[in-house]
């Protein structure tokens, strides 16, 4: 069955929810890609997202893998255009209007108001993901360890995610 129209619809919709970061759309992404369309399982979604953190560039490129699974190379391309097209157009429009918006008093209000909401959405996405990713003392320890290290030291986060892989092999390999 042709999944392309559904992929375009889902990812264009998700793109508009990514206020403050890709993770803001994660709860909705889980519902649509896992529960509604069954393109992948929840653990697979978590895995792809996490692996995507090690890739360079914008950090939601894992959507390409979902598109590829559901619709081959065309699916991957469709997902890219659907996910980045709408917000790109919006950013472009704002860039063109910016000189006029600069003096608009509500601009600061919108920026100040959306800041806590986007942080909240990020946190909500994080909790949704944690439900699937944190399953015991070891995984919790890895998450807290990464958090504390990042708060304390200036270290490349991609390296810590990679370290998570190594720790994972040592901790979770069946004996």
């Amino acid at each position, binding site marked *: 069955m042709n999944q392309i129209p559904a992929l375009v619809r889902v990812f264009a919709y998700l793109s508009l929810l990514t206020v403050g970061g890709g993770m803001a759309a994660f709860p909705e992404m889980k519902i649509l890609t896992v529960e509604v369309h069954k393109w992948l399982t929840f653990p697979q979604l978590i895995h792809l997202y996490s692996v995507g953190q090690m890739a360079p560039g914008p950090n939601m490129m894992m959507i390409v893998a979902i598109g590829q699974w559901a619709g081959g190379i065309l699916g991957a391309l469709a997902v890219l255009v659907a996910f*980045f097209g709408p917000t790109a157009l919006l950013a472009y429009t704002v860039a063109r209007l910016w000189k006029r918006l600069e003096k608009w008093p509500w601009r600061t209000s919108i920026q*100040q108001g959306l800041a806590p909401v986007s942080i909240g959405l990020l946190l909500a996405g994080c909790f949704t993901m944690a439900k699937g990713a944190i399953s015991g003392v070891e995984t919790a320890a890895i998450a807290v360890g990464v958090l504390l290290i990042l708060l304390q030291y200036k270290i490349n986060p991609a390296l810590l995610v990679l370290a998570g892989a190594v720790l994972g092999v040592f901790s979770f390999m069946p004996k």
Partner: protein
Amino acid sequence: MSDTAANPALEAAANAAPDASRVSIGQIFLEFLLIGSTSFGGVVPYLRGSLVTRRHWVDDKEFVEMLSISQSLPGLNATNMAILVGEKLRGALGSIAAIMGICLPGAVLMYIVGIFYRIHGEHIWITAALKGVAAAAVGLILSTVVGMSKKSLSGRFDFVFIALTVIAVNSLHLGVPRTLIAVGLLAILFHRPRKEQKESGVQ
């Protein structure tokens, strides 16, 4: 400043001089391709290093302002920044070149990773490694939350809006769009323009 009517045929020709006021489409594409293929662990520092420090395409003040626009719009910071910088340099074509450049390497990589994961994802080594990777990613997102809270909140009361957002999505299951509209409007109205804001400043 920007030239939206630029002919795509011109991109390869002329304009090759590394002049900040007249950067070619090809240069924009290559610079963002470079950022897109090297920016491990978060794009923003790489963007600053390339666009501000090395190329002088935008100055630091402009960069900070573009970043704050990017953060309050839907869309990823990385791609919104590409659009804004591309637009500033060469209009619509500049935006297209920048976003394609920054997305291409990661997209190709994740395409390959997706295929590989589909075939080998059930392997016990991979499953064990991914369990660690996912846990680490949770820690990474939490550190982003802490970092953003330190930087972009404008008062203690903002924590109420953060809490409301989390409760609406995770406990009440209102969904992201309804939460965004409801709590977003509330927070924007709370921060509505006031006369005394001029004295109190942004912080």
